[in-house]
Protein backbone atom coordinates (compact mmCIF):
# COMPACT_ATOMS: atom_id res chain seq x y z
CA UNK A 1 0.00 0.00 0.00
CA UNK A 2 2.95 2.23 0.68
CA UNK A 3 4.21 1.66 -2.86
CA UNK A 4 0.79 2.52 -4.18
CA UNK A 5 0.81 5.71 -2.17
CA UNK A 6 4.23 6.76 -3.50
CA UNK A 7 3.34 6.04 -7.05
CA UNK A 8 0.08 7.89 -6.57
CA UNK A 9 2.00 10.90 -5.43
CA UNK A 10 4.04 11.05 -8.68
CA UNK A 11 1.22 13.02 -10.24
CA UNK A 12 0.20 13.30 -13.89
CA UNK A 13 2.77 12.99 -16.71
CA UNK A 14 3.01 13.20 -20.53
CA UNK A 15 4.40 10.06 -22.13
CA UNK A 16 5.13 9.40 -25.76
CA UNK A 17 5.37 6.02 -27.35
CA UNK A 18 4.02 3.53 -29.76
CA UNK A 19 0.96 1.47 -29.08
CA UNK A 20 1.84 -2.17 -29.39
CA UNK A 21 -1.32 -3.72 -28.02
CA UNK A 22 -4.86 -2.48 -27.81
CA UNK A 23 -7.21 -4.58 -25.81
CA UNK A 24 -10.65 -3.02 -25.73
CA UNK A 25 -13.41 -5.55 -25.65
CA UNK A 26 -16.84 -4.12 -26.18
CA UNK A 27 -18.79 -3.73 -22.98
CA UNK A 28 -15.80 -3.51 -20.66
CA UNK A 29 -15.12 -0.46 -18.59
CA UNK A 30 -11.44 -0.41 -19.12
CA UNK A 31 -9.27 -0.76 -22.21
CA UNK A 32 -5.80 -2.22 -21.74
CA UNK A 33 -2.98 -0.85 -23.87
CA UNK A 34 0.76 -1.41 -24.05
CA UNK A 35 2.90 1.59 -24.78
CA UNK A 36 6.42 1.06 -25.98
CA UNK A 37 9.44 3.23 -26.48
CA UNK A 38 10.20 2.94 -30.21
CA UNK A 39 13.97 3.04 -29.71
CA UNK A 40 14.49 1.18 -26.48
CA UNK A 41 13.17 -2.07 -25.21
CA UNK A 42 10.82 -0.53 -22.68
CA UNK A 43 7.11 -0.87 -22.32
CA UNK A 44 4.43 0.40 -20.05
CA UNK A 45 0.96 -0.83 -19.42
CA UNK A 46 -1.72 1.73 -19.95
CA UNK A 47 -5.35 1.66 -19.01
CA UNK A 48 -8.03 4.01 -20.16
CA UNK A 49 -11.70 4.14 -20.77
CA UNK A 50 -12.87 2.77 -24.14
CA UNK A 51 -14.59 6.08 -24.86
CA UNK A 52 -11.22 7.73 -24.85
CA UNK A 53 -10.13 5.47 -27.72
CA UNK A 54 -13.33 6.04 -29.63
CA UNK A 55 -13.13 9.79 -29.32
CA UNK A 56 -9.70 9.98 -30.96
CA UNK A 57 -9.88 11.93 -34.25
CA UNK A 58 -7.41 9.51 -35.80
CA UNK A 59 -8.33 5.84 -35.45
CA UNK A 60 -5.87 4.34 -33.00
CA UNK A 61 -4.37 1.10 -34.16
CA UNK A 62 -1.48 -1.01 -33.02
CA UNK A 63 1.74 0.64 -34.08
CA UNK A 64 0.40 4.17 -33.89
CA UNK A 65 2.53 6.87 -32.30
CA UNK A 66 0.69 8.50 -29.42
CA UNK A 67 1.16 10.98 -26.64
CA UNK A 68 -0.61 10.11 -23.43
CA UNK A 69 -1.51 12.21 -20.43
CA UNK A 70 -2.20 10.26 -17.30
CA UNK A 71 -1.39 9.30 -13.85
CA UNK A 72 0.71 6.32 -12.81
CA UNK A 73 -1.05 3.96 -10.49
CA UNK A 74 -0.04 0.78 -8.74
CA UNK A 75 -2.42 -2.06 -9.29
CA UNK A 76 -2.18 -3.82 -6.03
CA UNK A 77 -4.11 -6.84 -7.24
CA UNK A 78 -1.27 -7.88 -9.57
CA UNK A 79 1.56 -5.77 -8.31
CA UNK A 80 2.02 -3.89 -11.58
CA UNK A 81 2.37 -0.27 -12.35
CA UNK A 82 0.21 1.13 -15.08
CA UNK A 83 -0.69 4.48 -16.41
CA UNK A 84 -4.26 5.56 -16.17
CA UNK A 85 -4.59 7.69 -19.26
CA UNK A 86 -6.95 10.56 -19.26
CA UNK A 87 -5.96 11.89 -22.68
CA UNK A 88 -4.61 10.17 -25.76
CA UNK A 89 -3.42 12.10 -28.75
CA UNK A 90 -2.30 10.30 -31.85
CA UNK A 91 0.79 11.72 -33.37
CA UNK A 92 -0.50 12.58 -36.82
CA UNK A 93 1.25 12.24 -40.14
CA UNK A 94 1.88 15.98 -40.30
CA UNK A 95 3.32 15.91 -36.82
CA UNK A 96 5.49 12.91 -37.73
CA UNK A 97 6.79 14.62 -40.84
CA UNK A 98 7.49 17.77 -38.89
CA UNK A 99 9.48 15.74 -36.38
CA UNK A 100 11.41 14.00 -39.10
CA UNK A 101 12.10 17.42 -40.55
CA UNK A 102 13.37 18.69 -37.19
CA UNK A 103 15.56 15.61 -36.79
CA UNK A 104 16.82 16.04 -40.35
CA UNK A 105 17.82 19.64 -39.58
CA UNK A 106 19.52 18.51 -36.37
CA UNK A 107 21.49 15.71 -38.04
CA UNK A 108 22.40 17.96 -40.94
CA UNK A 109 23.67 20.58 -38.52
CA UNK A 110 25.78 17.92 -36.83
CA UNK A 111 27.27 17.11 -40.24
CA UNK A 112 25.94 13.56 -40.50
CA UNK A 113 24.86 14.13 -44.10
CA UNK A 114 28.24 15.50 -45.12
CA UNK A 115 29.20 13.96 -48.49
CA UNK A 116 32.77 13.72 -47.21
CA UNK A 117 31.65 11.10 -44.72
CA UNK A 118 30.34 8.85 -47.48
CA UNK A 119 32.44 5.74 -47.88
CA UNK A 120 32.83 4.36 -51.39
CA UNK A 121 31.31 0.98 -52.18
CA UNK A 122 33.67 -1.86 -53.07
CA UNK A 123 33.53 -2.94 -56.70
CA UNK A 124 33.21 -6.60 -55.78
CA UNK A 125 32.04 -7.09 -52.17
CA UNK A 126 33.05 -10.39 -50.54
CA UNK A 127 29.87 -10.66 -48.51
CA UNK A 128 26.90 -8.34 -48.65
CA UNK A 129 25.07 -7.78 -45.39
CA UNK A 130 21.35 -7.52 -45.95
CA UNK A 131 18.93 -6.31 -43.29
CA UNK A 132 15.36 -6.82 -44.33
CA UNK A 133 12.08 -8.41 -43.35
CA UNK A 134 11.76 -12.19 -43.50
CA UNK A 135 10.37 -13.40 -46.86
CA UNK A 136 9.70 -9.84 -47.99
CA UNK A 137 9.49 -8.62 -51.56
CA UNK A 138 12.47 -6.39 -50.77
CA UNK A 139 14.60 -9.39 -49.77
CA UNK A 140 13.53 -11.32 -52.86
CA UNK A 141 14.27 -8.33 -55.12
CA UNK A 142 17.73 -7.77 -53.73
CA UNK A 143 18.72 -11.45 -53.80
CA UNK A 144 17.33 -12.19 -57.27
CA UNK A 145 18.73 -9.13 -58.96
CA UNK A 146 22.11 -9.51 -57.29
CA UNK A 147 22.35 -13.20 -58.23
CA UNK A 148 21.35 -12.48 -61.79
CA UNK A 149 24.06 -9.85 -62.11
CA UNK A 150 26.74 -11.84 -60.36
CA UNK A 151 25.98 -15.51 -59.73
CA UNK A 152 28.84 -15.84 -57.21
CA UNK A 153 27.48 -13.15 -54.90
CA UNK A 154 27.38 -13.99 -51.16
CA UNK A 155 24.87 -12.58 -48.71
CA UNK A 156 24.67 -12.47 -44.95
CA UNK A 157 20.99 -11.86 -44.37
CA UNK A 158 19.64 -10.54 -41.05
CA UNK A 159 15.90 -10.76 -40.77
CA UNK A 160 14.31 -8.07 -38.63
CA UNK A 161 10.95 -6.45 -38.36
CA UNK A 162 11.00 -3.36 -40.55
CA UNK A 163 8.05 -1.55 -39.05
CA UNK A 164 6.37 -1.25 -35.75
CA UNK A 165 7.80 -0.81 -32.30
CA UNK A 166 10.34 -3.64 -32.42
CA UNK A 167 11.91 -2.66 -35.70
CA UNK A 168 14.52 -0.17 -34.53
CA UNK A 169 16.16 -2.24 -31.75
CA UNK A 170 16.25 -5.32 -34.00
CA UNK A 171 17.75 -3.37 -36.90
CA UNK A 172 20.27 -1.76 -34.56
CA UNK A 173 21.54 -5.08 -33.28
CA UNK A 174 21.56 -6.60 -36.79
CA UNK A 175 23.54 -3.62 -38.01
CA UNK A 176 25.99 -4.00 -35.16
CA UNK A 177 26.51 -7.70 -35.94
CA UNK A 178 27.05 -7.13 -39.65
CA UNK A 179 29.29 -4.13 -39.10
CA UNK A 180 31.47 -6.23 -36.80
CA UNK A 181 31.71 -9.03 -39.39
CA UNK A 182 35.06 -8.67 -41.18
CA UNK A 183 33.80 -10.43 -44.31
CA UNK A 184 30.93 -8.03 -44.83
CA UNK A 185 32.04 -5.29 -47.21
CA UNK A 186 28.72 -3.52 -47.62
CA UNK A 187 25.41 -3.51 -45.78
CA UNK A 188 22.05 -3.01 -47.45
CA UNK A 189 19.01 -1.84 -45.55
CA UNK A 190 16.09 -2.93 -47.66
CA UNK A 191 12.41 -2.40 -47.16
CA UNK A 192 9.50 -2.13 -49.55
CA UNK A 193 7.17 0.82 -49.75
CA UNK A 194 4.82 1.79 -47.00
CA UNK A 195 3.05 4.61 -45.24
CA UNK A 196 4.92 7.34 -43.46
CA UNK A 197 4.34 5.51 -40.17
CA UNK A 198 5.58 2.24 -41.67
CA UNK A 199 8.81 3.84 -42.77
CA UNK A 200 9.19 5.64 -39.46
CA UNK A 201 11.87 3.30 -38.02
CA UNK A 202 14.20 4.36 -40.82
CA UNK A 203 13.98 7.96 -39.74
CA UNK A 204 14.74 7.03 -36.15
CA UNK A 205 17.44 9.11 -34.57
CA UNK A 206 19.20 6.17 -32.91
CA UNK A 207 19.26 4.21 -36.20
CA UNK A 208 20.53 7.22 -38.14
CA UNK A 209 23.36 7.70 -35.69
CA UNK A 210 24.20 4.01 -35.82
CA UNK A 211 24.31 4.08 -39.63
CA UNK A 212 26.53 7.11 -39.53
CA UNK A 213 28.85 5.47 -37.01
CA UNK A 214 29.16 2.12 -38.81
CA UNK A 215 32.49 1.56 -40.55
CA UNK A 216 31.06 -0.66 -43.28
CA UNK A 217 29.54 1.23 -46.22
CA UNK A 218 25.76 1.18 -45.92
CA UNK A 219 23.20 1.39 -48.69
CA UNK A 220 19.75 2.59 -47.75
CA UNK A 221 17.03 1.16 -49.98
CA UNK A 222 13.80 2.06 -48.31
CA UNK A 223 10.41 2.18 -49.97
CA UNK A 224 9.81 3.51 -53.43
CA UNK A 225 11.47 6.27 -55.34
CA UNK A 226 9.67 9.23 -53.71
CA UNK A 227 10.22 7.91 -50.15
CA UNK A 228 13.12 9.53 -48.46
CA UNK A 229 13.56 8.50 -44.84
CA UNK A 230 16.51 9.97 -42.97
CA UNK A 231 18.46 6.72 -43.30
CA UNK A 232 18.79 7.63 -47.00
CA UNK A 233 20.72 10.73 -46.02
CA UNK A 234 23.05 9.26 -43.45
CA UNK A 235 23.73 6.09 -45.47
CA UNK A 236 26.78 6.09 -47.70
CA UNK A 237 24.59 5.54 -50.72
CA UNK A 238 20.90 5.93 -51.33
CA UNK A 239 19.13 3.43 -53.53
CA UNK A 240 15.67 4.31 -54.78
CA UNK A 241 14.41 0.74 -54.37
CA UNK A 242 15.75 -2.62 -53.14
CA UNK A 243 16.26 -3.67 -56.78
CA UNK A 244 18.25 -0.52 -57.32
CA UNK A 245 20.35 -1.36 -54.25
CA UNK A 246 21.23 -4.77 -55.68
CA UNK A 247 22.38 -3.08 -58.90
CA UNK A 248 24.49 -0.62 -56.94
CA UNK A 249 26.31 -3.11 -54.73
CA UNK A 250 26.89 -5.86 -57.30
CA UNK A 251 28.49 -5.31 -60.66
CA UNK A 252 26.72 -6.88 -63.60
CA UNK A 253 29.11 -9.78 -64.17
CA UNK A 254 27.63 -10.58 -67.57
CA UNK A 255 27.87 -6.97 -68.66
CA UNK A 256 31.39 -6.73 -67.26
CA UNK A 257 32.41 -9.92 -69.01
CA UNK A 258 30.85 -8.68 -72.24
CA UNK A 259 32.68 -5.42 -71.86
CA UNK A 260 35.98 -7.18 -71.28
CA UNK A 261 35.34 -9.49 -74.23
CA UNK A 262 34.42 -6.52 -76.38
CA UNK A 263 37.52 -4.61 -75.31
CA UNK A 264 39.64 -7.66 -76.00
CA UNK A 265 38.14 -7.98 -79.48
CA UNK A 266 38.69 -4.31 -80.11
CA UNK A 267 42.31 -4.33 -78.98
CA UNK A 268 42.99 -7.38 -81.13
CA UNK A 269 41.27 -5.75 -84.08
CA UNK A 270 43.17 -2.54 -83.51
CA UNK A 271 46.45 -4.45 -83.45
CA UNK A 272 45.58 -6.41 -86.55
CA UNK A 273 44.63 -3.22 -88.32
CA UNK A 274 47.89 -1.68 -87.27
CA UNK A 275 49.88 -4.59 -88.64
CA UNK A 276 47.88 -4.58 -91.87
CA UNK A 277 48.37 -0.85 -92.26
CA UNK A 278 52.10 -1.10 -91.69
CA UNK A 279 52.34 -4.02 -94.11
CA UNK A 280 50.50 -2.00 -96.72
CA UNK A 281 52.81 0.95 -96.16
CA UNK A 282 55.85 -1.28 -96.47
CA UNK A 283 54.49 -2.84 -99.64
CA UNK A 284 53.97 0.60 -101.09
CA UNK A 285 57.50 1.69 -100.24
CA UNK A 286 58.80 -1.56 -101.70
CA UNK A 287 57.11 -0.79 -104.99
CA UNK A 288 58.62 2.64 -105.24
CA UNK A 289 60.82 2.74 -108.38
CA UNK A 290 64.01 3.22 -106.37
CA UNK A 291 63.52 0.06 -104.32
CA UNK A 292 61.72 -2.00 -106.95
CA UNK A 293 64.61 -1.52 -109.41
CA UNK A 294 67.66 -0.10 -107.65
CA UNK A 295 69.78 -0.02 -110.82
CA UNK A 296 67.14 1.89 -112.78
CA UNK A 297 68.66 5.19 -111.71
CA UNK A 298 72.11 4.08 -112.74
CA UNK A 299 70.84 2.63 -115.99
CA UNK A 300 69.07 5.86 -116.72
CA UNK A 301 72.23 7.84 -116.17
CA UNK A 302 74.20 5.30 -118.20
CA UNK A 303 71.81 5.76 -121.07
CA UNK A 304 72.11 9.48 -120.71
CA UNK A 305 75.90 9.26 -120.92
CA UNK A 306 75.63 6.95 -123.88
CA UNK A 307 73.32 9.37 -125.57
CA UNK A 308 75.68 12.22 -124.89
CA UNK A 309 78.66 10.21 -126.11
CA UNK A 310 76.78 9.30 -129.28
CA UNK A 311 75.75 12.88 -129.75
CA UNK A 312 79.33 14.01 -129.19
CA UNK A 313 80.68 11.58 -131.78
CA UNK A 314 77.98 12.46 -134.18
CA UNK A 315 78.62 16.15 -133.65
CA UNK A 316 82.36 15.90 -134.07
CA UNK A 317 82.01 13.75 -137.19
CA UNK A 318 79.38 16.06 -138.59
CA UNK A 319 81.58 19.04 -137.88
CA UNK A 320 84.47 17.29 -139.60
CA UNK A 321 82.29 16.49 -142.60
CA UNK A 322 81.09 20.06 -142.70
CA UNK A 323 84.61 21.39 -142.63
CA UNK A 324 85.64 18.85 -145.28
CA UNK A 325 82.91 20.07 -147.54
CA UNK A 326 83.79 23.66 -146.82
CA UNK A 327 87.45 23.15 -147.63
CA UNK A 328 86.50 21.11 -150.69
CA UNK A 329 84.36 23.95 -151.98
CA UNK A 330 87.02 26.49 -151.24
CA UNK A 331 89.57 24.41 -153.10
CA UNK A 332 87.20 23.98 -156.03
CA UNK A 333 86.64 27.71 -156.26
CA UNK A 334 90.35 28.29 -155.90
CA UNK A 335 90.90 25.97 -158.82
CA UNK A 336 88.47 27.80 -161.03
CA UNK A 337 89.92 31.13 -160.01
CA UNK A 338 93.55 30.16 -160.42
CA UNK A 339 95.50 28.72 -163.29
CA UNK A 340 95.29 25.19 -162.02
CA UNK A 341 93.29 23.89 -164.98
CA UNK A 342 95.69 25.49 -167.41
CA UNK A 343 98.66 24.15 -165.50
CA UNK A 344 97.07 20.73 -165.55
CA UNK A 345 96.99 20.85 -169.32
CA UNK A 346 100.79 21.23 -169.37
CA UNK A 347 101.33 24.93 -169.34
CA UNK A 348 103.68 26.45 -166.83
CA UNK A 349 104.07 29.86 -165.30
CA UNK A 350 107.62 31.14 -165.20
CA UNK A 351 108.60 33.84 -162.77
CA UNK A 352 111.74 35.81 -162.49
CA UNK A 353 113.14 35.93 -159.01
CA UNK A 354 113.62 39.50 -157.88
CA UNK A 355 116.11 40.11 -155.15
CA UNK A 356 114.34 41.50 -152.06
CA UNK A 357 110.91 41.34 -153.71
CA UNK A 358 108.17 39.10 -154.93
CA UNK A 359 108.83 37.04 -158.07
CA UNK A 360 107.51 38.59 -161.23
CA UNK A 361 105.93 36.77 -164.14
CA UNK A 362 108.32 36.39 -167.02
CA UNK A 363 106.71 37.93 -170.10
CA UNK A 364 109.68 38.54 -172.40
CA UNK A 365 113.00 36.87 -173.12
CA UNK A 366 114.52 40.31 -172.74
CA UNK A 367 113.76 40.07 -169.07
CA UNK A 368 115.74 36.86 -168.71
CA UNK A 369 119.37 37.08 -169.63
CA UNK A 370 121.38 33.94 -169.05
CA UNK A 371 121.92 33.26 -165.37
CA UNK A 372 118.64 34.76 -164.31
CA UNK A 373 117.06 32.84 -161.45
CA UNK A 374 113.62 31.70 -162.42
CA UNK A 375 110.77 29.77 -160.82
CA UNK A 376 108.70 27.44 -162.93
CA UNK A 377 105.28 26.71 -161.65
CA UNK A 378 103.58 23.59 -162.96
CA UNK A 379 100.43 21.78 -161.96
CA UNK A 380 101.73 20.03 -158.87
CA UNK A 381 104.32 22.52 -157.66
CA UNK A 382 107.24 24.73 -158.68
CA UNK A 383 110.88 24.28 -159.44
CA UNK A 384 113.63 26.86 -159.56
CA UNK A 385 116.08 27.11 -162.45
CA UNK A 386 118.58 29.36 -164.04
CA UNK A 387 118.35 30.70 -167.59
CA UNK A 388 121.06 29.12 -169.71
CA UNK A 389 120.66 31.15 -172.82
CA UNK A 390 118.33 32.70 -175.29
CA UNK A 391 116.76 30.56 -177.93
CA UNK A 392 115.84 32.29 -181.12
Amino acid sequence: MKVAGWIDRLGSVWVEGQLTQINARPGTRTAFLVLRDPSADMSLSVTCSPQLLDRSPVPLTEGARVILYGKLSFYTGRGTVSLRATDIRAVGVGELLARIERLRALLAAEGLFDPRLKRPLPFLPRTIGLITARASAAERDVLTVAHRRWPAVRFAVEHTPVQGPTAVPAILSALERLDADEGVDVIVLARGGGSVEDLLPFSDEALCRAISKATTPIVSAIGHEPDSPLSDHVADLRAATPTDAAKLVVPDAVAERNLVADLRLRTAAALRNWVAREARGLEMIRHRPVLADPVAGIDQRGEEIERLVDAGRRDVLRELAKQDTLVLHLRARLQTLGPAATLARGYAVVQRMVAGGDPEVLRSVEDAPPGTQIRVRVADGAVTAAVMGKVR
Partner: protein
Amino acid sequence: MTDTPVSEMGYEAARDELVDVVKVLEQGGLDLDASLALWERGELLATRCEEHLAGARKRVENALAHIAKEDS
Protein backbone atom coordinates in the same frame (compact mmCIF):
# COMPACT_ATOMS: atom_id res chain seq x y z
CA MET B 1 97.61 38.72 -146.36
CA THR B 2 99.70 37.64 -143.42
CA ASP B 3 103.00 36.06 -144.00
CA THR B 4 102.69 33.42 -141.30
CA PRO B 5 104.13 30.16 -142.62
CA VAL B 6 101.17 28.03 -143.60
CA SER B 7 102.70 24.95 -142.01
CA GLU B 8 102.46 26.63 -138.59
CA MET B 9 98.82 27.69 -138.90
CA GLY B 10 95.97 26.17 -136.98
CA TYR B 11 92.89 24.90 -138.80
CA GLU B 12 90.62 27.85 -138.09
CA ALA B 13 93.25 30.41 -139.03
CA ALA B 14 94.11 28.54 -142.25
CA ARG B 15 90.46 28.14 -143.16
CA ASP B 16 89.60 31.78 -142.45
CA GLU B 17 92.52 32.93 -144.53
CA LEU B 18 91.54 30.54 -147.31
CA VAL B 19 88.04 32.06 -147.30
CA ASP B 20 89.61 35.52 -147.55
CA VAL B 21 91.88 34.40 -150.38
CA VAL B 22 88.99 33.04 -152.37
CA LYS B 23 87.03 36.25 -151.77
CA VAL B 24 89.89 38.47 -152.93
CA LEU B 25 90.51 36.35 -156.03
CA GLU B 26 86.80 36.42 -156.89
CA GLN B 27 86.77 40.20 -156.66
CA GLY B 28 89.60 40.27 -159.23
CA GLY B 29 91.55 43.45 -160.07
CA LEU B 30 94.91 42.02 -159.03
CA ASP B 31 97.84 41.75 -161.38
CA LEU B 32 98.99 38.37 -162.40
CA ASP B 33 101.90 38.21 -160.02
CA ALA B 34 99.77 39.06 -157.00
CA SER B 35 96.96 36.78 -157.99
CA LEU B 36 99.38 33.98 -158.73
CA ALA B 37 101.01 34.42 -155.32
CA LEU B 38 97.62 34.58 -153.70
CA TRP B 39 96.44 31.52 -155.54
CA GLU B 40 99.53 29.57 -154.53
CA ARG B 41 99.03 30.56 -150.91
CA GLY B 42 95.39 29.53 -151.20
CA GLU B 43 96.47 26.12 -152.44
CA LEU B 44 98.81 25.76 -149.49
CA LEU B 45 96.07 26.86 -147.08
CA ALA B 46 93.62 24.40 -148.56
CA THR B 47 96.16 21.61 -148.27
CA ARG B 48 96.86 22.64 -144.70
CA CYS B 49 93.17 22.56 -143.93
CA GLU B 50 92.85 19.12 -145.44
CA GLU B 51 95.76 17.91 -143.36
CA HIS B 52 94.16 19.28 -140.22
CA LEU B 53 90.84 17.68 -140.99
CA ALA B 54 92.40 14.37 -141.92
CA GLY B 55 94.35 14.45 -138.65
CA ALA B 56 91.23 15.23 -136.66
CA ARG B 57 89.27 12.46 -138.34
CA LYS B 58 92.10 10.09 -137.67
CA ARG B 59 92.12 11.00 -133.98
CA VAL B 60 88.37 10.52 -133.66
CA GLU B 61 88.50 7.19 -135.39
CA ASN B 62 91.44 6.07 -133.31
CA ALA B 63 89.64 7.04 -130.15
CA LEU B 64 86.46 5.22 -131.21
CA ALA B 65 88.40 2.15 -132.19
CA HIS B 66 90.12 2.21 -128.82
CA ILE B 67 86.76 2.41 -127.00
CA ALA B 68 85.28 -0.33 -129.16
CA LYS B 69 88.25 -2.55 -128.32
CA GLU B 70 87.85 -1.90 -124.61
CA ASP B 71 84.12 -2.55 -124.79
CA SER B 72 84.51 -5.87 -126.59
